[in-house]
């Protein structure tokens, strides 16, 4: 375990801050850190400056081979922010890590100039610096991954929102095609928006299509039943369509009472809805003139 006092790295960073920053920036440019243009040179420069400050403080107060201590809090927070931004901006993990890793070159150069004639010390310091920067690089990649996962999760949720729109099939007939696995919270939200639409469209019939739902468990089935009951209380009727054989079996097996009309396809359900509203689809009376 290295003692904080035994490395000259923090001293070097403080003393030659400008130069390290300049050399590091040159390295970053060469490695293409800001090549995508999503981050300006000024922003990059600002992040680099802040990182050097945190690094100096961390290295001065804490140990170089363990980043979990409170002395490295500031550094970790900064890296979390940088990695998070890069993830959102669409950078790759490697591009993000290079931000940190490219600091090696200027640091090693400085070390060589400072203690070049003392082989022992040079080897020790270079090793310590390399280890530290590797650790910081790895931490950055992990922070990046975490941020990426959050972005994906959020996108999934938005996709789910889009995949359950309420559609108006006809005057007074709504359809809600449910797609994907339904969890309790999402089902509740979806059902509430269906009921809202029933009010705003004055729809007397709502067709809930579950063709795209792989499994229906007790909880989801209960939500469906509650929604149908609520719609009835409001003055509308529901038809469930798209019940596949497996789901029919599950429903019977679970002993659920589906007290609602169900049809195999949405087409059948739509036909029933029209009948309920005393509407019919007929052929046009007049044939078109030849030549249209």
């Amino acid at each position, binding site marked *: 375990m290295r003692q904080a006092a035994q490395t000259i790295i923090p001293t070097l960073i403080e003393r030659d801050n400008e130069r390290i920053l300049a050399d590091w920036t040159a390295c970053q440019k060469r490695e293409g850190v800001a090549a995508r243009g999503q981050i300006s040179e000024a922003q990059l420069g600002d992040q680099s400056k802040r990182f050097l400050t945190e690094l100096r403080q961390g290295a001065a107060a804490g140990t170089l081979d363990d980043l979990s201590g409170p002395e490295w809090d500031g550094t970790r927070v900064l890296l979390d922010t940088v990695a998070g931004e890069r993830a959102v901006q669409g950078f790759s993990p490697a591009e993000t890590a290079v931000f940190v890793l490219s600091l090696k070159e200027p640091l090693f150069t400085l070390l060589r100039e400072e203690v070049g004639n003392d082989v022992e010390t040079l080897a020790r310091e270079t090793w310590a610096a390399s280890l530290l920067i590797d650790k910081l690089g790895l931490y950055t990649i992990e922070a990046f991954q975490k941020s990426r996962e959050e972005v994906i999760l959020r996108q999934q949720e938005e996709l789910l929102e889009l995949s359950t729109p309420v559609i108006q099939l006809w005057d007074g007939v709504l359809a809600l095609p449910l797609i994907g696995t339904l969890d309790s919270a999402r089902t509740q939200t979806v059902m509430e928006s269906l009921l809202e639409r029933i009010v705003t469209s004055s729809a*007397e019939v709502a067709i809930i299509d579950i063709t795209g739902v792989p499994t229906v468990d007790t909880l989801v089935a209960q939500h469906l039943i509650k929604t149908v009951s*609520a*719609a009835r209380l409001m003055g509308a009727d529901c038809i469930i369509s798209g019940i596949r054989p497996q789901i029919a079996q599950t429903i019977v097996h679970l002993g659920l009472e589906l007290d609602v009309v169900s049809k195999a396809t949405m087409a059948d359900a739509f036909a029933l809805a029209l009948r309920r509203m005393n509407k019919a689809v007929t052929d046009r009376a007049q044939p078109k003139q030849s030549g249209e």
Partner: protein
Amino acid sequence: MGEIPILQIGDCLLVSIQVDMHDQLAMSLQDDLTVRIVGSRARGVMIDISALEIVDSFIGRMLNNIAAMSRVLDAVTVVVGMRPAVAITLVELGLTLTGVRTALNVDKGLAMIRRIIDSEGDLRAGRK
């Protein structure tokens, strides 16, 4: 008369509940309606609850009572305008409105009353 106005549209009575009713008000509404149904020989009673944010078991009981009374007096009761949040809560509460028909709004409610009355073969002149 209580504070809730009862309007007459043709052979229908329309009640629009706009306030958060306390129990006495609900009771007097029930009584007022009974008197008015008999007095106007109404065939339909429409209760508009689109302004109600809360319907608890007491109000539910009131609606059921009104429906039961109307039926005895040969009138149809339709409750219109129930809000989604109210409907969801009533289902969770386990409350069923027995003998109460429901419609989305006043227009559909009137049409429903019309359909039911007409299908009973009402021969009174001037009603269409």
